């Protein structure tokens, strides 16, 4: 089932990647609501103040691992500390350039992470996300 107006939150310190990701999503789903954050702290604040509140809709989080102030793993830890319901409303995907299998395994082991997507985000991956 395709979401009518899907919400995307992209947290990655690399603006180029965010540009690519946002554009790819918009191409597949022109009505998609895409918010990007290069500062993970801001991304965290946004999620905690809106998405995890009752009555808010679901959102897809595309999260980078390797960021200067906070890694993607730390980001999820913060979510765990602050909210008990975030995984009900937030579909978390790791979007990383890393080809390190250790990163992939770590993502697989984390119950909150749905999948590990290798950068760059491709149109096929977006379609898959939206199903």
């Amino acid at each position, binding site marked *: 089932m395709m979401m009518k107006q899907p919400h995307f939150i992209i947290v990655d310190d690399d603006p*180029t*990647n965010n540009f690519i990701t946002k554009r790819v999503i918009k191409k597949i789903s022109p009505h998609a609501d895409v918010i990007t954050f290069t500062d993970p702290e801001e991304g965290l604040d946004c999620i905690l103040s809106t998405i995890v509140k009752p009555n808010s809709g679901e959102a897809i989080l595309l999260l980078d691992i390797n960021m*200067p102030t906070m890694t993607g793993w730390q980001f999820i830890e913060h979510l765990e500390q602050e909210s008990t319901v975030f995984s009900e409303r937030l579909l978390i995907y790791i979007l990383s350039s890393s080809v390190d299998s250790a990163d992939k395994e770590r993502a697989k082991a984390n119950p909150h992470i749905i999948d590990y997507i290798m950068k760059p985000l491709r149109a096929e991956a977006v379609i898959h996300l939206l199903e």
Partner: protein
Amino acid sequence: MTNKSDSEQLIIAKQELVLQNKEKGKRAAELVIANKELAFQNVKKEKRAAELVIANRELAFEHKEKEKRAEELIIANKELAFQNIKKEKRAAELVIANRELAFQNEKRHKRAEELLIANEELAFLNNEQQALFASIVNSSSDAMLSKTLDGIITSWNPGAENMFGYKPDEIIGKHVFILIPEHLQNEELEIAKKIRNREKVEFYEAKRVKKDGTIFNASLTISPIRDWNGNITGASKIIRDITSNVIAEKKLIKSNRMYAFTSAINQMIVKTTDEIALFNEACNIAIDIGKFKMAWIGMIDEATKKVIPLAHAGSDDEYLSKMTSISIEDIPAGRGPTGESLREDIYIVCNDIENDSDMAPWKEATGERGYLSSIAFPIRKFGKVVGAYSLYAPVKNFFDDTEIALLKEAAGDISFALENFDIAARHKVAEDKIIESEEVFRRLFNESADATLLLDDSGFTRCNKSAVNILGYAKKKEVIGRQPWDISPEKQPDEKLSKEKAKAMIAKALKDGYNSFEWLHVKADGTELHVEVMLTRITLKGVQSYYTIWRDITNRKKAEGKIKILANRLRLATSSAGMGIWDRDLVNNQLVWDEGMYSLFEIYEKELRSAYDCWASRLHPQDLERVKEDIQNAIAGRKDYDTDFRIVLDDSSVRYIKASAVIEQDAEGNALHMIGVNWDITELKEKEKQLIFTSNGLQRAINDLNKIMDSSLDVICTVDAKGNFLRVSAASEAVWGYKPEELIGKPLINFVYNEDNEKTQLTAANVMTGNSLNHFENRYVHKDGSLVPIEWSARWDKKDQIRYGIARDVTEKKRLEKAIETERQQFFDLFSEAPSSMGVLSGPDHRFEMANPLYLQLIGKKDIIGKSVKDVLPEVTEQGFIQILDSVYQTGETFSANEMIIKLDVNNNGKLVDRYLSFLYQPQIGRDGKPYGILFFIVDVSEQVLSRKKIEEREVFNRSVVNSLSAHLAVVNDKGYIISINEAWTSYAMQNGETSMERTGIGSNYFEVCEKASMVGDINAAHVLHGMKDVLSKKIKDFYLEYPCHSPSEEEWFGLRIVKFEGDEPLILVVHTNITERILAENERIKITDDLISRNQDLEQFTYIVSHNLRAPVANIKGLSDMLGDESLSKDEAGIVAKNLLSSVNSLDNVIVDLNNILQLKSEGSKTRECVVFAEVVNDIEKSIHSVMLRENVKIVVQFDEVSEMITLKSYLYSIFYNLISNSIKYKRPDVHLVIEIKSFLTKDTIEIIFKDNGRGIDLKKAGDHMFGLYKRFHMDIEGKGAGLFIVKSQVEALGGKISVESEINKGTEFKIIFANKKNI
């Protein structure tokens, strides 16, 4: 339409109405009475409260605690009273409401009545008037209709049309049943019947049905219609819709019920005394009187935050046990009325359970049980919510403001009762305490052995049995009511009037609160009663009273009298005996002397000084301290006081005083008094002195004499007339073998040889006639049995009847001869049984004169005496022994040999056997000075020599093994002395500068070596010392220690093992091994492992860089490239893509450059080091980034005074400085001018370089370990790759240094680099 009989009917109806109204009034009156009753009950409660107050006041009067309690009770009662007032008010309001309702009813019926009257009047009116009346009928809002007796409607006014909805043409001619609900139609028939029979018809209320089918409550007034003949032809009806009235009435009933309910609760709480009964009753009343469907009370369980139902009543159907348990937390299970009421501390109404979302969890259960409305009230205890009271009604919208107000009160009552239980429980405790203390007091009073009385102005008011007994009365009555002076003599012993003195004593007690004094009472039989009185002021029921205790001291008083008499007698007795008596009060420390003491101490001005001063001033200074000590010992009970001392009188003469005393103690053993006597013993002392002097002189004379006696070689003795020894000098032991004490007291004749007894006794008798005696000989028997010839000289002292005698031993010569004989015999014994072979040769041809058996055994020959050596032992001739013998014989010089080997034909079979002999040839020299023979001693040491040789052979073997070992070995004994070492030990010591082995050679003490080393701080030496001692004492089996021992030229390690030497001897083996090779190999291995780990980490690092930092721009390039192929890409977007593509490619390039730098760094292991001047490095950097520094306004302050240069890799140091400076510039605070301080410091072994800036700083808590990591950045907004600090750290470490950082946000960052200060490296 009307007639006369109809008007009669109307009158009847009117009367009925009046009657009905009266009944209403009566009902109101009943309510008033009920309320009055309630008020009466409240009055009763108040009265009870008042009684309590009075009771409490009484209690409070005697006790403070009671006062407190009374206050609490008064408050509680006030509250109760206040609540009752509130209830009265409510009751009054209800009465008014009832009255109003009654009044309304009255009005309503009055109006109907008026209409009927109007009807009645109508009957007599003319048409004109009829028209007027008709207009009244038509304009009435009441329905008016008429019908035939058959029930057919004949008229229908507009009011009826409005009310029922039928138009006149629809209804006229129809049966009246159309207006009546089917099931009530019988009633209508009854009424019609009544009208026909002219019976009185009730003014009644009934249900009617409208055209649209709705049923409503109607009030009907009916009157018959008669024709002119008075026959009833029909009936007229006035119908009024009273639906609203019915509702109001129902409400009133409900309110009354609620009031009754509240009232019942109110009454119940007065009667109930425990919680559970209270809760159960509250629920029961809700059902029985409040007519609720169900009621329950639950209390909060603090642990689970759940509500636990404790009581319920009504139709429960397991609702409580099966329902979702209620919580007080803000969760669905806590959002129902009860939960919310408890949480919010307010009552919660739910007037429509079916449709209330908050009731969702219980909806099904409540629906099944018909609970349609509910209300919950919090139950509080001292302001805190502890439970809830929940009520369920079977109808919707049951609870309106009136009910809620009433129910709230009921809930309040329950809370109030709960608090009251607690208060009551506390009061009970307080009351019990008071009762208990009263009981104790009463018992104390009544059963005290001391006479105890209560006294006030009127005399004694109470007394106990002891008081009656002590006075000798039979009953308390005889004492009570009398004044103290009534039972006293007229005057007290001090001649004061009893009455006046008693009043004065009481006045003092009043003033001070307490007074204690002695008093003389008179008993019932007239005898005296001395008492010690203790008066304590108390206030009893507001009256000033005195708690009086008497202690009988009659006996003491009598005893005091007796003591006075005895003391007088004693004084008489002692003064005549020259004795003094003293009494020292130890409690008050007062000394009292009698006259005798003063005269003994010759003190005449006794008033001027205290007795103690007199005593101390007279006492001889040398005796003072000793006597004081004696006194202290006596007081402490250590020693009786029985001493003497000297006193010095005014004329300096000395007197001797003897003193003794006794100590008087109380029951606990505390000393109270010391009473003693002193008397003069000067004369006695003088005599004693003289006696001692005389006897001392005598003793000295005797001692002199004894000395003379004991130093004599001859026995000097005295013998009494009976012939017993009196005194004997010490020589007796030498002469007779008996000590003097063995002889003294025994008859002399017993020790004389039997044969000489007679002549001895004769001579003795002769001496005792006065003839002195010289040179008398007789024989004594020595203790050893030998005979001792004695020469005597003796004299008789006639005066003392004592014989003095001197005995001399005359056996010397005879004894010498005997001794020679004995000696010879002993020599032969020795000779023949000697453990060595010996013999005597005589003559120049060495003939055997003597030979002992051992010698014969040695040579294996017999019968050799008289034969020459040559003949006996032909085999030794060739071995040169004859020459030796000849030489000894000729020269007279002794010859000795050790372990000489001789071959002997021991078995006489011509086979020679090796014998090792040690021997001595000693020439026997004659009186002419020439030798006449040879004495020989021979010891066969063959076995020893052979076994020793074997051992020596083995020793050589062992030693060569030990010496061939590379380990340094030493054997140490239990005193620490080295008793053996191997060559390795020696050569090691030599290597370490010990030339003569004086420290660690054989004979030196290894314990001392270790002790000395440990004293100068060598910890290993201390361990070794302990190890040696522990192994020696078998505390441990062995000891092993590895330690480094580095000389300036090389690094070495040693292992030292200490083991116990096998065997019983306390020896240890110290094994010292050079383990340098092993340690070096180990170190090498560790280094290799570390290197491997480091390389592995580097590899991981590269994996990380490749997978993240290298991959990131590649991924971006990939994504952007995809976009370039997208046809929908706009021109603007294409521009952005191109820009991003470029930046991605740049960052890819940067990463590759960094990687290259780092790889280079890793491979640049050892380049040439040179002397690098810090200032030059900073200058070079400043030049290279000159423009940046200008732009960013950067100031670099350097201070390299302590150390200005170091030998290192210049490129690395430059890179370190460069990276740290550019790092500071990168992370400067935008609003602050950047100042970088670079300083160097020199310590003993380090060079420290500090980089300090005033930039934005880093939160080290957050950054922590990652600070120097690769590609770690801590600021989002600054461009940076995160490689700088990684390179700095790598380079610092490559140079053998360490880097650390301190930083504070918005203050700055300080890097500290520490290099080892090795000038020569």
